[in-house]
Every structure is written in structure tokens, then in C-alpha cells.
């Protein structure tokens, strides 16, 4: 029916364009050669169009000989074909709109066909990244690659993900993967200066052999980001993207007492206004009227500190080409207000990407990004005190108010008032950042290409912390008259890579050789000062009073200058026989300034094989279209945990009398070197059911050795400890990525996918010791990293109300002893993954992404404070109303004067499922609406982020990067509406 309508409409439109036409005919099929019936064929920029017939044939009259023909069909990737002069026939093959097994990937320093790869590499398409209302790209990656896990994504606008783990924790310290953006090695903090919409592709190198080409930097995995260029074959395009939305708050798992309940509770424990003003208090002589008036104040603190923030973004991008060059330019304004009062993030980015083909053997280009941003941020994130607004929303007493009746700020517990702090004081970060890289590529001989790529990332962060002399906080600073703290930090990353690549096809033998050199350095300089004695009204250094011996206003000054560098040589060989058997090997030699002088250089290698089974003559499994098996091994390292000068013996200035002295400060270690990772990977990749189902399954085992630990050395050497490479860890697991088309009809396509990863992390050795404690967690051989270490809770004794615990022999005791601590679970989820689906029906699209993690436990430090009479100065949870009060009560809340200690009572399972993103969109049929002359495309959509979470964890957020949950800024629930217009 729809086809008939289209035929009729197109016939009408055809009549309108009879000038200087030529007729173009053709066939449209899918990749199996099956004709696609009713595919739309139109001439871009005009109203001319038709559809294919039952054999997939079409005939169209084009007004100009060099028109662009657009062919599209629901559920398939559209194609645009620029007609050659005189061309009258087209054969179009449309590919299914799900990931294909024969993509070309950007891997270390080269591009490879997925077919040829011997390791485990994931790709994330730009469509998955675009327009997500999170400022920082690394958080957007969540759920898009099996084995890639994001922990501790703070909801504070502009913050980057705290931890990105690829295949588990491979180190004792820094676990960040290596990020390469347009050839420059950068840290994850670059992402709050990049516009995620500028990203063309993301490749995640997950296994040891793929990342081994990055040598001592690749030990935690590598994420390669390439920014956009103009799409080949397309005319100049303008695109406007705008979106607006709201950020609402997601916290709210605790039910806190109301004013009367809190006052009654205070009376019970005999502390606080509820007792001080109680008629039952022998030391109080009044009646209950003060208490009653307090009970009538019920400040809703969540409303006071949390808000519905707004979000807005406008972007204009232009891309175009000439014969020899193409460019991509974009500018974006992004503004996000957090769910907490006083937090926001504003950023402007401009990108200019340019490629130029000087002649048939020389190419060059530049990628540049400039960004300026400013954010007001909350300093006390994750602290249990009333300076942390997230904590304030729960811990503040309901009978306290922001303002007293006379309009002045009420001084809350601990002498603070958060609203007053937000109104009077300032916490700002301004960032100015440039990320620029350029390349030259020359085919110096047939099949021999040389390429050099140089890039810098230069960033200046300015922080300002202003404490108003009239604010409550001013009483805590030196001189008690306000303070102004400003810091400047400048960071420069420089990467220069030069490669030579050779490829040769001889009959059925295909060789690729690549060799290269890279130099990379990071340096940062910072300076800060804090001045005191602020003149009221001035928030600049002009308001600072010079310090004298008596006035207490002597300013403090600090700063540092630190740098590191790596020089590397690398090479890779790939051999393919008959497109069926692939062998690859790589070798890299890295020298780093942070390694000890006796371990300055390291060698890293990898080797892998893969077999395209489906290309074998004997392969005849009907339902399997493609099958590839791969096995690889790689050795690489991680140099990030080492400090810039940790291997050196350093001296700090001191004094004796009035003479200067030099005092040894760090012993150094001339053998200090990278943490090593050695890993195996086995991959099965397949396409099945007529290319409707795609999957990749990986099995891996990685051993991390030479983990950096602080080893105790004899005091007789003159030192106490020394950093040494001594620990050993293991990560093994399985990753599954599946994506399939459930249903496909001309109007309706429905695909579903799942990413799942299971990682088993185990500490094998800790050098000198077999375990050591870190706060409430323990590092112990045989257990995973992040294991909680606490006394086991045994409930409340109904007869006495005492808290009960298990001792090491399993007996129940009411005596708490830290000697009875045992290991529990870990806060790093062994299971994690995502499910996602995409539906398109005619012009509507729907997509959803849900992420989940399981098998982990988190210490809920939040409940420790709100179900604890020791902290009666804070509000308490309603659960405390069920505290044990008389013999026979069965409850989990102990008697109020039984000491409340850390125990496994507060360790909770944190399995969760979170609906991360739901997007509903509508693509307007611009040609049919008659606006095809002005608009290339028009799309409107609504998107919801973090819509709901299913979990038994009673804290705020089961996705944190620490073993202790304490009032972190939770991710926001965001609703946005947007429009994308193409010109």
C-alpha cells in the first residue's frame, strides 16, 4: 500500500522536472544479491524521486549530469552516489544497518580490516556517542564495549569518569587506559574539553596483543579516538543540532525523620535540642513550647539543596570538499546545571579539521580543537559533613532552617550553612584547552608510505576559591577575614609519531610491514597563592591585604614543575594467506624518563594468529555466514603508576641554624620499571542467520607482574620504605558481544544487543607480605582487589538489645574487636555489561541502553552515619524509630547506647540495573514535505538519561569507584528534547 502511494507521489513529482534531464537506471540489492523492493531512490537537493520495483530496478530522471543519487531503505545503511559525467547505470548494494564483520578499524598506528585482526578490538560508532547530554566523553562509553567498565562516574557537571577499567584492575594504582586522540597521547581529563559530537570513531584495544604495540603505555588497554572529517562524496553540508533539557535529581533512597520524630529521638538519647528543651529533662525548667515550635518546622532540605537544573546545547557544523581538500568545522555551546544548587558547567568548543591531497602521492592535514569552559563546583564531594550538599540534604536536622525568621542565615551544625556558602563564596574552575595535531603522509614508493604525525595538547586550568569575609566559613581561615585562592596549572602533552608502512600482495600472499618511532612527553607547571584579609566586595587580588608579622595575613604560595617523556621504536608485521590465515607480530622498545637508570628500556612483543574459517572451501554451515577464530599473546607494560622522579634519589632543602642544608628526601630505585602485563586472548567472531546475528566472544587471561608496591626496608639503611616492583595480579574472564536483527520488514526493523563481561581478579603475590590493610579494605593474596575487611555482623540480641558479632571461630559475641575482622566481597563488579535495542518504524526510531553490574558489595558509609546515635547532631533515618527498646523486641537496630561500630551490617550487595538512555526520534521525510531544497535532513528527538535504577543497595548510587559509599554526587536524571537539521 505504501508502495503504491509512493509511486503515485513520485510520478507527480517527476512531472515537475523535465529540463536537461538524463535518465539513470539501476538495481538495488542487499549484500546477498537479493533485490530490495520499494527502496527509495531520489536526487539530492531536488524533489525528484522514485522507488524500486519488484526486481529492485529503478529508473530516474536526473536534472543535472553530476547529481547525487540517494538510495535508502528502512533498516539498511543509506547510500549516496555522486554520478560520474555520462554515467547512466548504477548497481547499488545496501548493507544492513548493524555492525558488519568487514569493517575497517583504526588499530595501533594503522588501519586494518576486522577480518585480519588477531586480537580483541571493539568499536563504538559515533551515532552512539552523539548528543548524549553528558559533558565528558569517557562516561558516554559506558556499556558500549564488553569488558570496558566505568566506575565512579560523578554526576557533577563537567567531571570525567573516575575510573575506566578494561578487563579488570591490572595495577595497584592508576588504572586508566591510554587515550589517543588524533594521534596524541592524552589523559582522561582532556574529555571535558572535547565535544563528543566531533568524534567519528572509537576503537578499544582490549587484549594484550592488540595493545602491545603501545608498549609500556598500553598495560591498561588503549582507547583510540578519531575526530570527524568530511564524508567523502558528499557536497558541502551544514548541520545544526540543538537540544534543551532538564536535570532532575535521582537520590532519595533514605527516609529521614521529620522534626517531631527527630526531637523525640533526641530526647531518647538525651542529646540535642529535643532533650535540652524537653520537659522531661530535670535540668530544664520550661514547658514544651519551644520544643513544639521546633517540631512544627519541617524544612525540606532536599528541596533546599537540590534543584532541577537546565541543560542546553547548540552546535553548528560545516563540512565540505573540493577536488583536493576537505574540511570539517564545528562549533558548540554546551551548558549544564547540576542537580545540586551551585553546580554548573559551561563550555564552548570550536573544531577545525582539514585534509589536503597535494598530489597523488602527498597528503597532509590538521585536526584542531579549542575549548573554553567554566564551572562552579562543589568542593566537598564525598565528604560526610554539612559542606557537602548531597550529604546536607539528608543529614540536616528538619527543625533547622536556611533562613531564620529575621531573614539572616541560620548557623547549622558545624557552624555552616550550605546555602549561605553557595550565595557568598565561590568555587570556579576555568579551563582553556587546545588539542591540535597535524600529519604528513607520502607514498614515497609504490606500496611504501611514510607518515608523520605531530600533536600537542595544551591546557590551562585556573581555579578560584573565594571565601567571603562576611561568610561563616571565613572564621576558619587564617586571619578570619576571608581568603582568595587562585591557582594556575598549565599542562602540555606532546606526541610525535613517524611511521613507514609497506604492503604487498603477491598472488595469495599478502604482507604488511610497518615500523616507526614515537616521542611523547607530558609536562605541567602550576602556581597558586592564597591571600587573606579580603576587602569586602572585592574578589580579585586587589582585595588582598599584604601580610605582616602580626596581622596573620601572610599569604601562602605554592607551585610545581614536573615532566616525563617516552621514546619508542616499534614495528609490526602482518601476513595473510589466501584471505584465510592471518599471522601478526609486533615488537616495541620503550625508554621512559621515569624508569630507573638501570631499567631505562623495555621490550614488548606480541604474536597472534587468526583463521577465517568461513572462507574455507569445506565450510558449509548453513546458518553461519562468517566465522573467525583468533588466538594471540602479548607482553606490554604500564608506566603510569610511576611518579615522574620516583626512581631518582632526591634531596630537599632544609636548614641548620641559619645555614642551608640538603636533606635526602626519597631513596629512589635505579631498577624501578613498568608494571608488566602478559596476556593470552582467544576470540570467536561470527555472523549468522544471513547476517542477522553478529557476535564476538573473547576468553582471556592476563597476568600483571612487577606491580609497584611500597616495600619496607631496614631502617638501618637510613630509609623506611622504597618503591619496588614486586606484586603480582591476575585477571581472567570472558566477554560476549552479541547483536542481532530480531525482525526486519520494509517498514520495521528491530535489533537487540547485549554486551557481557565476567572478570575474575586475584592477587597472586604482594612481595614481602601476604596481605596489608588499606582502611576498611584488605589486599590479600588469593582475594581480588577491593575486598572489604570488617567484623561480621550477627544481628541484635532480642533479650538485651546488644549488637552481636561473629568472632574468628564463628561464635557469637557482643564484644567488638577489630581482631575479628574477616574478608567479604569486593566493590569492583566481576559481572558487568549492557543490553540495548534499536527499533525503527517508518520514520520513527527508538533506542534504549541499559547497563548492569553484579557480584559486588559496597560499604554503605551513608547508613553508618544516619543509623548511628553517636551522630545525633545529624538527622537520622526513620529506621531508628525501630531501635530495640525492651527485652523481646526483634529488630536489626541495636539498643541506642550499644556502641555502633563498623561491621558487615553496612556492607551491602550492590547489584544493579540502570536504564541509562532511551531515545525516541522522528526523521522528517524532507523530500516528501517539499522542503528538500532547503533541508537535507530534519530530525527531532526526545532523550532520557538515567531514567531508573533497579537495585537492592540502599545508598545513593551502586556505581562508585571506592569501596565506601559516602554521599558522592550521584548521576543525574536528564530529559532532553532536540532537533538536528541538515542543510
Amino acid at each position, binding site marked *: 500500500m505504501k508502495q503504491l502511494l509512493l509511486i503515485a507521489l513520485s510520478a507527480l513529482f517527476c512531472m515537475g522536472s523535465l529540463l536537461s534531464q538524463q535518465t539513470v537506471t539501476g538495481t538495488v540489492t542487499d549484500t546477498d544479491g537479493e533485490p530490495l523492493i520499494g527502496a527509495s531512490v531520489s536526487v539530492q537537493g531536488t524533489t525528484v524521486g522514485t522507488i524500486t520495483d519488484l526486481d529492485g530496478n529503478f529508473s530516474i530522471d536526473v536534472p543535472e549530469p553530476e547529481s547525487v543519487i540517494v538510495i535508502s531503505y528502512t533498516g539498511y545503511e543509506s547510500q549516496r552516489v555522486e554520478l560520474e559525467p555520462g554515467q547512466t547505470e548504477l548497481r547499488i548494494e545496501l548493507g544492513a544497518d548493524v555492525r558488519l564483520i568487514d569493517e575497517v578499524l583504526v588499530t595501533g598506528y594503522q588501519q586494518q580490516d576486522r577480518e585480519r585482526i588477531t586480537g580483541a578490538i571493539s568499536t563504538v560508532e559515533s551515532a552512539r556517542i552523539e548528543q548524549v547530554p553528558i559533558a565528558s566523553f569517557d562516561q558516554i562509553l559506558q556499556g558500549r564495549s564488553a569488558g570496558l567498565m566505568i566506575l565512579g562516574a560523578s554526576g557533577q557537571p563537567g567531571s570525567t569518569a573516575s575510573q575506566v577499567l578494561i578487563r579488570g584492575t591490572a595495577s595497584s594504582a592508576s588504572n586508566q587506559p591510554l587515550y589517543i586522540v588524533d594521534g596524541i597521547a592524552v589523559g582522561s581529563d582532556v574529555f571535558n574539553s572535547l565535544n563528543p559530537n566531533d568524534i567519528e570513531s572509537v576503537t578499544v584495544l582490549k587484549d594484550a596483543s592488540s595493545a602491545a604495540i603501545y608498549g609500556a603505555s598500553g598495560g591498561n588497554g588503549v582507547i583510540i579516538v578519531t575526530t570527524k572529517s568530511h564524508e567523502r562524496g558528499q557536497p558541502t553540508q551544514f548541520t545544526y543540532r540543538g537540544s534543551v533539557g532538564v536535570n532532575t535529581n535521582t537520590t532519595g533512597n533514605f527516609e529521614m525523620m521529620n522534626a517531631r520524630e527527630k526531637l523525640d529521638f533526641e530526647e531518647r538519647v538525651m542529646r540535642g535540642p529535643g532533650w535540652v528543651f524537653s520537659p522531661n529533662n530535670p535540668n530544664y525548667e520550661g514547658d514544651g513550647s519551644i520544643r513544639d515550635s521546633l517540631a512544627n518546622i519541617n524544612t525540606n532540605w532536599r528541596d533546599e539543596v537540590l534543584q532541577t537544573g537546565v541543560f542546553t546545547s547548540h552546535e553548528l557544523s560545516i563540512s565540505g570538499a573540493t577536488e583536493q581538500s576537505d574540511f570539517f568545522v564545528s562549533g558548540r555551546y554546551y551548558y549544564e546545571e547540576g542537580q545540586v544548587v551551585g553546580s554548573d558547567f559551561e563550555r564552548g568548543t570550536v573544531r577545525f579539521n582539514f585534509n589536503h591531497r597535494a598530489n597523488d602521492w602527498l597528503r597532509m592535514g590538521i585536526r584542531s580543537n579549542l575549548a573554553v569552559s567554566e564551572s562552579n563546583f562543589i568542593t566537598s564531594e564525598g565528604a560526610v559533613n554539612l559542606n557537602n550538599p548531597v550529604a546536607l540534604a539528608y543529614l540536616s536536622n528538619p527543625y533547622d532552617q536556611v533562613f531564620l525568621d529575621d531573614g539572616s542565615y541560620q548557623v547549622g551544625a558545624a557552624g555552616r550553612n550550605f546555602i549561605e556558602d553557595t550565595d557568598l563564596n565561590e568555587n570556579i574552575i576555568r579551563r582553556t584547552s587546545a588539542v591540535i595535531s597535524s600529519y604528513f603522509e607520502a607514498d614515497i614508493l609504490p606500496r611504501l608510505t611514510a607518515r608523520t604525525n605531530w600533536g600537542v595538547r595544551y591546557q590551562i586550568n585556573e581555579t578560584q576559591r573565594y571565601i567571603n569575609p562576611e561568610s561563616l566559613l571565613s572564621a576558619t581561615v587564617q586571619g578570619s577575614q576571608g581568603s582568595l585562592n587562585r591557582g594556575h596549572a598549565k599542562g602540555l602533552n606532546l606526541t610525535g609519531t613517524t611511521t613507514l608502512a609497506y604492503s604487498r600482495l603477491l598472488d595469495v600472499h599478502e604482507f604488511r610491514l610497518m615500523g616507526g618511532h614515537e*616521542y611523547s612527553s607530558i609536562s605541567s607547571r602550576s602556581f597558586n597563592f592564597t591571600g587573606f584579609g579580603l576587602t569586602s566586595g572585592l574578589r580579585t587580588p586587589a582585595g588582598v591585604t599584604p601580610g605582616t608579622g602580626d596581622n596573620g595575613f601572610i599569604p601562602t604560595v605554592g607551585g610545581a614543575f614536573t615532566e616525563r617523556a617516552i621514546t619508542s621504536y616499534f614495528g609490526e608485521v602482518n601476513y595473510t594467506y589466501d584471505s584465510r590465515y592471518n599471522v601478526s607480530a609486533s615488537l616495541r622498545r620503550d*625508554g621512559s624518563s621515569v624508569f630507573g637508570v638501570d631499567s631505562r628500556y623495555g621490550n614488548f612483543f606480541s604474536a597472534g594468529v587468526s583463521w577465517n574459517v568461513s572462507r574455507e572451501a569445506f565450510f558449509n554451515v548453513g546458518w553461519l555466514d562468517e566465522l573467525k577464530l583468533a588466538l594471540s599473546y602479548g607482553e606490554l607494560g604500564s608506566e603510569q603508576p610511576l611518579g615522574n622522579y620516583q626512581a631518582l634519589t632526591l634531596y630537599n632543602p632544609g636548614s641548620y641554624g641559619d645555614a642551608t642544608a640538603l636533606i635526602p628526601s626519597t631513596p629512589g630505585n635505579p631498577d624501578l620499571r613498568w608494571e608488566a602485563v602478559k596476556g593470552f586472548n582467544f576470540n570467536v567472531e561470527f555472523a549468522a542467520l544471513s547476517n542477522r546475528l553478529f557476535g564476538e566472544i573473547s576468553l582471556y587471561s592476563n597476568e600483571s607482574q612487577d606491580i609497584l608496591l611500597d616495600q619496607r626496608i631496614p631502617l638501618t639503611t637510613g630509609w623506611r620504605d622504597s618503591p619496588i616492583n614486586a606484586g603480582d595480579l591476575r585477571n581472567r574472564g570472558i566477554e560476549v558481544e552479541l547483536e542481532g536483527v530480531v525482525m526486519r520488514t520494509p517498514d520495521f526493523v528491530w535489533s537487540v544487543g547485549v554486551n557481557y563481561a565476567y572478570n575474575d581478579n586475584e592477587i597472586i603475590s604482594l612481595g614481602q607480605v601476604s596481605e596489608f590493610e588499606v582502611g576498611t579494605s584488605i589486599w590479600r593474596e588469593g582475594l581480588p582487589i577491593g575486598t572489604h575487611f570488617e567484623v561480621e555482623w550477627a544481628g541484635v540480641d532480642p533479650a538485651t538489645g546488644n549488637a552481636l558479632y561473629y568472632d574468628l571461630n564463628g561464635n557469637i559475641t557482643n564484644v567488638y574487636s577489630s581482631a575479628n575482622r574477616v574478608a567479604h566481597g569486593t566493590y569492583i563488579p566481576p559481572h558487568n555489561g549492557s543490553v540495548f535495542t534499536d527499533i525503527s518504524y517508518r520514520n520513527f526510531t527508538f533506542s534504549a541502553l541499559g547497563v548492569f553490574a553484579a557480584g559486588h558489595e559496597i560499604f554503605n558509609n551513608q547508613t553508618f552515619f544516619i543509623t548511628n546515635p553517636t551522630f545525633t547532631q545529624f538527622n537520622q533515618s526513620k529506621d531508628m524509630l525501630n531501635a530495640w527498646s525492651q527485652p523481646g523486641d526483634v529488630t536489626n537496630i541495636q539498643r541506642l547506647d550499644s556502641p555502633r561500630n563498623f561491621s558487615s551490617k553496612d556492607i551491602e550487595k550492590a547489584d544493579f540495573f540502570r536504564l541509562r538512555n532511551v531515545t525516541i526520534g522522528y526523521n522528517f521525510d524532507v523530500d516528501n514535505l517539499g522542503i528538500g531544497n532547503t533541508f537535507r535532513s530534519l530530525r527531532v528527538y526526545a532523550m532520557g538519561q538515567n531514567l531508573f535504577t533497579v537495585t537492592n543497595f540502599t545508598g545513593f548510587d551502586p556505581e562508585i569507584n571506592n569501596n565506601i559509599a559516602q554521599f558522592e554526587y550521584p548521576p543525574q536524571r536528564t530529559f532532553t528534547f532536540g532537533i538536528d537539521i541538515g542543510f
Partner: protein
Amino acid sequence: MNKYITLLILSFAVLFYSCDSELELEPNDSVSLEFDKLEDFELTLNGVYSSFTAASYYGELKLAMEAWAGDDLKISPQNNGQGAFIHHWNYTSGDQNTEAIWGRIYTTIFRANLIINNYEGLTPEDDMEAQRLNEIVSQAYGLRALAHFHAYMFFGERYNDGSELAVPFVTEIGIEQNPPRVTTNELFGQLKSDLNQAIELANPNFQVKTFGPAAMYTVLAHIALFERDWNGVVTHVNNALDAGAPGLADASTYLSMWNVQDIDGGENIFKINFEPTNARIGNIFYIPSLDVGYYWVTDDLLQLYDQDNDVRFEAFFDLSDFPRVIKYVGSPPANPNVADAKVYRTSELYLMRAEANYELGNDGDALADLDAVRSARIEGFSSPGETGGDLFDAIVTERRKELAFESRRFFDMRRWNMPIDRIDCTANSCFLENDNHRFVFPIPEAEVFANDEMVQNPGY
């Protein structure tokens, strides 16, 4: 042709950044020392002296631990745990104070070793530099010996015949070492050899804040005292006096050595300089900003002095508020308790020689030295003329009176095989038997754990 130019440009791009020197990055906020100029040695020597001012050394623990463990102090009502384990003789190998002082002493030794292990690599530019280098090296050897001697006093096994375990004698630099404990004879042999070498290289002019020959001979005498080499004691005391050790101070000079003046002169042989930014020794006894005194002087010590005529009574004590030690009173109100550490004084030379002569049977010479000290301290003193056992008791008593709170008494009692008998006692433990293993402090657990060669002291 153009292609080859391009190739050339590209290869420059590679070569430009492939030098090794790019990887030898020096820190900008700290210094690496090469010990290739005299200044490096000067600054490191200052670092050695500076280490003596740490709170874990003369800044507090060297003086406090001995005082807490002895019978000259009693716990005050204001005390809430300070020094309690030591005062009650409850220390174990996990004690933090013993770990701190052990670590600090060996850090000091390490800093001295930096000089000793590197000076041979420096070629002085002229005679003046060569002489200055010798002086620096002399002080390095000397201070290294002094620090080892302090380690021996706290941690070495009680002296019997010299075959007992002392402490490790560390001469090398390097974190790989596991220095073993050597016997007392070996240790003393090394210390004597180092001190003699130091004396040879030293600047002969006497300077009170430089560890010079006078102080070095004093240390040799002190070692001889532990070794019961009485002739050695006499010889070295005489050498010290010849090398420039000042004469005994008269009463008013003596007073100004201890009160707010804290003079460098008087009878000081060697002092460690303390500034207001350093730890404050006087805090052991009274902290003005908190108005607390954790330990009070015992009555039995106070009663030993002639309270009217003995200048030490006025110099050391203030009984107006509570029985308070003001030996390190500093200059209140601006810099209370900032006082230099008096490592050695001339009166000790006399007392050592007196004890040695007594042991040699020269009662007359012993009495002469004892009386010299007593006359200088007590106005209108006339000698009771003790001999024999009485003479020895008098020497014991005089050492207690003169050297109180200078880190001597507890170790003297161990030397003499005498018990600690607290007469004015507010502690849980008031009597430490003369053969109790607690007279020697435990080797820190951290050292035993990390050092394969370490052997713990008996009883711990």
C-alpha cells in the same frame, strides 16, 4: 625528487627526538646531588647536624626516653598517656618511640655516609678547599661515630666482656643492605678508629657548635667508660682538655648556660643548635600554650641538692607552681622551650675522670676532680673527703645531680648494674631490677621484619 625531499624531512622528524638525553629528566622542585663540588658536601653536612634536631632525636626522644625510664621524673596528674609505655617499662618491639629513635639515628648515619662515601671522588681546587673538605669529612666521621654510640646506648646488649651484640655499624649507602649487629668490641673498635681519623682531619680550633677534637676526645672517654677502660678514660679526658675543652664554669656563667641566655660559651664542649622552627626540648617538661606538664621532678632528686647554695637548683628547677624542670626553658614568652641541646660539658669530663681514677684505686685524684665540680656548683662548699665506697656513692650522686635530664642516668645505672628504685613514684611500676632485660630497649619490629640479619634483644 620531491619524494626524496619529503623522505628527508620525515627522517629529520625522527632523528630530532631520538636522543637518550631526552629521557634523563632532572626534577625542578628537588635536587639530585652529584657530590662533584665542595658545596654539596657543606650542605649535606648541615643536613647531618639538622638531623640531630629532629624530635625523634635531641628534639625530644633522646632526652625524654632516658628521663621517662629513670627515677628523676614522675608522671603528673595532667598526663594522659605521653611516654607512659616507657615510664612504666612496658615497651615492646612494636613501640613507636623506639622505632622512631632507631630510624632517626640511622638516618643521621646515612647522611654522614653520603659524605664519607663520596669525598674521595672530589678533587679540591686549591689548598683552602682541600682543608675545608678535610674538616667536613672529619665531622662526618665523628658524627657518624657519635650516632652509632647513641644507638649502642639505647639498643646494645648490656656490657659484660665485649662479646655481646651491639648494633649494626653501617658504612655503606644503598637500600639493598641488611646490616648485621656486630659485637660490642667490634663496634667500639670501629668507633675509636673513626674518631681518631676524625681528630686527625679536624680543624684544631675549638668551636662549640662544631663537632671538633675536644668533643671527639670526650666521646672516646665516654666509650672507654662503658668499656671499663679506666686508663683510657683518664687519657682521653686529658686529651679533651688539651684540645680546647673549656674550664669549669663559675656559678653565674653556669646559670646563663641554662636560662634564657642559653650561652654558647661557659663549659659547653659541643652543642646542637636549635631554632624556634625546630622541636622544643622543654616541651618534655611543660608546654606553656597548653599549660600542661606531663612529668614532674621527683622529690628524691630535689632533696639531693643544697637548695640554698647549689646553683644547679636555681638553674634546673622551678617549684613555684609544681615541681618543674626548667633546664631547657628557652626564652618565653616568644620562644618558650627553644633551647640548644648540650651534648657534652666539661663537668662530665671531670666526673668521668673521677670515676676512672676511683676504679684504678686513685681515690685522691678522684676526690680532687669530684671536688672541683662540687666547688664550682655549690657556694661555700667544703669537701667531706669521701673514700672507698662512699667516694663511689658520691660520684654516683654527683653525676645524677649534674647530668640530670641529659640522657645519662638510666644508662649509668645499667653500667653500674644498679636497679632503678623510684622512691617518689606515681607510676604502676616503681622498681626495675638490676638485671632486668628492660634496661636495654627492644630493636624495632620494623627492622627485624625487613632486615634478614637482625637479631632481637633478649626478653622481647
